[in-house]
């Protein structure tokens, strides 16, 4: 007995360590399993990763099986079940980061800190890996250190970071300019230039009847700014008409590679966003709203909380908003944790509910069966910001801007090969050529509109216009000049989709990995027309069989670049016959090493092709 209890005591102490930081977190989240992801994220901020003892504690405290906790934790890239480095460095790996030289910088930092990419240094000090686009394409290359964004990486900055990490300097003591994220607003139109006194749009809405406010939104012909372009007025109306407890959700999971407009809206125009959400709440009768903020924008969290609490003090949130006895509404911020698929509205709702971010089977749609199965409006950050202005100035005012099909303006996140990357607000109907001229792009070969899942337009299409009738976009506008290899652009995007596939459905889970391998095969010089046909078959299958938009659009970059930049593929079809995907000679290297042989029989001809 004594020896047993002696054995047990260190364990008990360990468990108490976890209880100490977990209990306040659990209390703050009301021991609700719906907040599981938030609890895990905060627990990790305290301990660096989710310890097995912490899972045990949470399992008991939340009355959920530990397998469920592990299942949720395992879904998100930024939640760790194993120790990571004290400094977790993640290099943003969008194509724009690559164009700015992130790979060389990663190699440099790794060698300076004696750590292999993807691994933890032996002393546990640092781990260095890559992550999907962090939304800093206008000021890249970028990285996250312990989930906080660092921009404008140069060799000099990397050297300084290596030194800071070696010296174990706490992040808070790093030079402030490393974290100075800029807005880079280059062109303002109504959304960015209209001054909105906090509460003004809400007052205007409250002076109208609810029906009249909804009417203004419908009159404005505002369409969702996340890219799909569903009518905002109709969405609000469908939700309003559905029975149940209503919720407003702002989708700030801006994960589409090359998109960073929400970052700027939330940084400098948060009142417009929250005011739009509050107007929506009034229309649909919601008492509760959420801002789902991507984990990469963790650095905006405190600022946004401050804006929310100021708005509460201003009686723009909380009980009896602006003296309206029947109007209670408040907003919580939930942080994502590195999962692009959560930008899909039903996956976002699952994630809000503390689950794995798997897109739901639809129908039913969120407007009737959303958060906690209740009627829910999910809109983009920019949509809510626009809605606040419509509440202020009326639907006709808004509808007069843009085109007949696409009213209003659109924020474009311009990055890549141009002199002035940043945010450009244009009325819908603006041509690609106009944007290129304004951002100082020259010798442009192609523009990727709306990110990896969007459309790649070539020079002869630069007369096309931004708008739902021609080029719908969530906002990304990545410019590639003639020095860029469009095959490598597509390959980067395909890797992105394989990494971000949620794994729920067969075609996307396996197909994106197969597609990624096929693109690598081409890249390694093993491609042939046989593989080209395979790529086309896979594209077809992903498009027709996938569960959600991620799988449907995973092959877009490939299809577009094949159609428009075929020579980039042709030059990689160095073989006419069939060639294996792997290097057969390298497949003998382990055996050569073990036997010490290096005779001709110990090798196989590389790139042998068969008919």
């Amino acid at each position, binding site marked *: 007995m004594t020896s047993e209890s002696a054995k047990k005591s260190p364990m008990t102490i360990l468990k108490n360590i976890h209880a100490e930081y977990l209990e306040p977190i659990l209390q703050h989240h009301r021991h609700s399993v719906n907040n599981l992801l938030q609890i895990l994220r905060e627990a990790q901020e305290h301990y660096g990763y989710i310890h*097995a003892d912490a*899972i*045990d504690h949470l399992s008991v405290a939340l009355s959920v*099986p*530990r*397998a*469920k906790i*592990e*299942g949720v*934790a*395992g*879904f*998100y*890239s930024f939640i760790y079940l194993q120790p990571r480095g004290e400094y977790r460095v993640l290099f943003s790996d969008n194509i724009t980061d690559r164009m700015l030289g992130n790979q060389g910088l990663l190699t440099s930092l790794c060698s300076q800190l004696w750590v292999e990419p993807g691994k933890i240094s032996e002393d546990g000090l640092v781990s260095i890996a890559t992550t999907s686009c962090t939304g800093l394409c206008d000021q890249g290359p970028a990285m996250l250190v312990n989930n906080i964004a660092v921009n404008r990486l140069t060799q000099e900055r990397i050297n300084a970071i290596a030194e800071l990490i070696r010296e174990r300097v706490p992040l808070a003591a790093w030079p402030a300019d490393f974290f100075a994220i800029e807005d880079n607003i280059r062109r303002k139109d109504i959304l960015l230039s209209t001054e909105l006194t906090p509460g003004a749009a809400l007052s205007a809405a409250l002076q109208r009847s609810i029906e009249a406010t909804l009417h203004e939104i419908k009159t404005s012909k505002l369409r969702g700014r996340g890219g799909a372009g569903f009518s905002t007025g109709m969405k609000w109306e469908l939700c309003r008409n559905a029975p149940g407890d209503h919720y407003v959700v702002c989708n700030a999971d801006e994960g589409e590679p090359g998109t960073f407009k929400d970052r700027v809206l939330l940084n400098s125009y948060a009142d417009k966003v929250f005011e739009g959400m509050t107007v929506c709440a009034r229309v649909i009768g919601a008492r509760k709203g959420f801002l789902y903020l991507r984990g990469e924008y963790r650095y905006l969290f405190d600022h946004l909380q401050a804006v929310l609490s100021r708005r509460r003090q201003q009686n723009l949130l909380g009980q009896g908003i602006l003296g309206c006895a029947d109007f209670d509404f408040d907003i919580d911020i939930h942080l994502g944790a590195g*999962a692009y698929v959560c930008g899909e509205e039903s996956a976002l709702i699952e994630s809000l509910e503390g689950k*794995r971010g798997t897109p739901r*089977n639809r129908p039913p749609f969120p407007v009737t069966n959303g958060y906690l199965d209740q009627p829910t409006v999910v809109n983009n950050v920019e949509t809510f910001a626009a809605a606040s202005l419509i509440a202020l100035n009326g639907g006709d005012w808004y509808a007069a801007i843009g085109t007949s099909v696409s009213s209003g303006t659109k924020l474009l996140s311009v990055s890549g090969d141009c002199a002035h990357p940043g945010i450009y607000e244009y009325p819908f109907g603006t041509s690609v050529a106009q944007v290129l001229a304004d951002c100082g792009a020259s010798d442009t070969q192609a523009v990727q509109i709306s990110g990896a899942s969007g459309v790649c337009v070539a020079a002869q299409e630069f007369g096309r216009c931004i708008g739902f009738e021609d080029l719908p976009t969530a906002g990304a506008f990545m410019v590639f000049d003639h020095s860029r290899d469009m095959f490598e652009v597509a390959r980067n995007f395909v890797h992105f989709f*394989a*990494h*971000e*596939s*949620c*794994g*729920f*459905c*067969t*075609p996307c*889970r*396996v*197909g*994106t*990995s*197969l597609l990624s*391998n096929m693109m690598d095969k081409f890249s390694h010089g093993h491609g042939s027309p046989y593989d080209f046909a395979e790529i086309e*078959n896979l594209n077809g*299958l992903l498009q*027709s*069989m*996938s*569960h959600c938009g991620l799988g449907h659009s995973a092959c877009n970059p490939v299809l577009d670049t094949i159609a428009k930049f075929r020579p980039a593929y042709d030059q990689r079809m160095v073989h006419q016959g069939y060639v294996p*995907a792997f290097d057969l000679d390298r497949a003998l290297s382990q055996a050569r090493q073990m036997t010490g042989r290096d005779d001709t029989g110990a090798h196989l001809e590389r790139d042998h092709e068969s008919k």
Partner: protein
Amino acid sequence: MSQNNNQPASFELDGKTIPFQAGQTIIQAAMAAGVYIPHLCFNPEFKPHGSCKLCTVKANGRQTASCTQQAQAGMVVESDTKELNDERRALLQMLFVEGNHFCPSCEKSGNCQLQATAYEMDMMSPHFDHFFPDRPVDASHAEYLLDFNRCILCSLCVRASRDVDGKNVFALSGRGIKTHLIVNARSGHLADTDFSGADKAAQVCPVGVILKKRVGFAVPIGERSFDQQPISATPHPMKQEG
């Protein structure tokens, strides 16, 4: 729903008239009418999941999973077409290369729905390059074995354990191609869960992941479920097993 007083509502599936009751999905109605639509993650006893996509049909010209798509009167559904079967075969090939499926050494062979569906779809080869993942076997439990090499992530065991057994022995973790089945134990071992052979979860695996020990290969080749008849002629394959 346009439903006459006496006539039950119906839709058309590959030219056949399939009656259905309100709320039934396409595959449920088809199954009730004795018409086979290939499927793996669907099991009539559980809430549809819609993940394997084998049951994808063309309903009014639009591809959709027939296990989650509700039947609608007058709908025109195509299922047994060359185009769809070619795509289903490709999905099966994906499942075969994703895991490690070595049928000759698998106790489930002959009773395996993945294998039988692949036969049905004339899958002669895995076509794609294999992933050959490293997935250790869990033999910790006294009575049962978990061979994760064969897992197709249909989540039937997850649903059975949660919804029928009330136990939550199984869950999915990871994401994308790294998605994998886990069990509810700190050690990660089945022996340390409350799993029991009497659980529904012990009965539902369509492939050879959850296996009772010491009874393998009891039925001789030629007498196993799908030796006798193809899966398309076996309306409820789960109930056919001994």
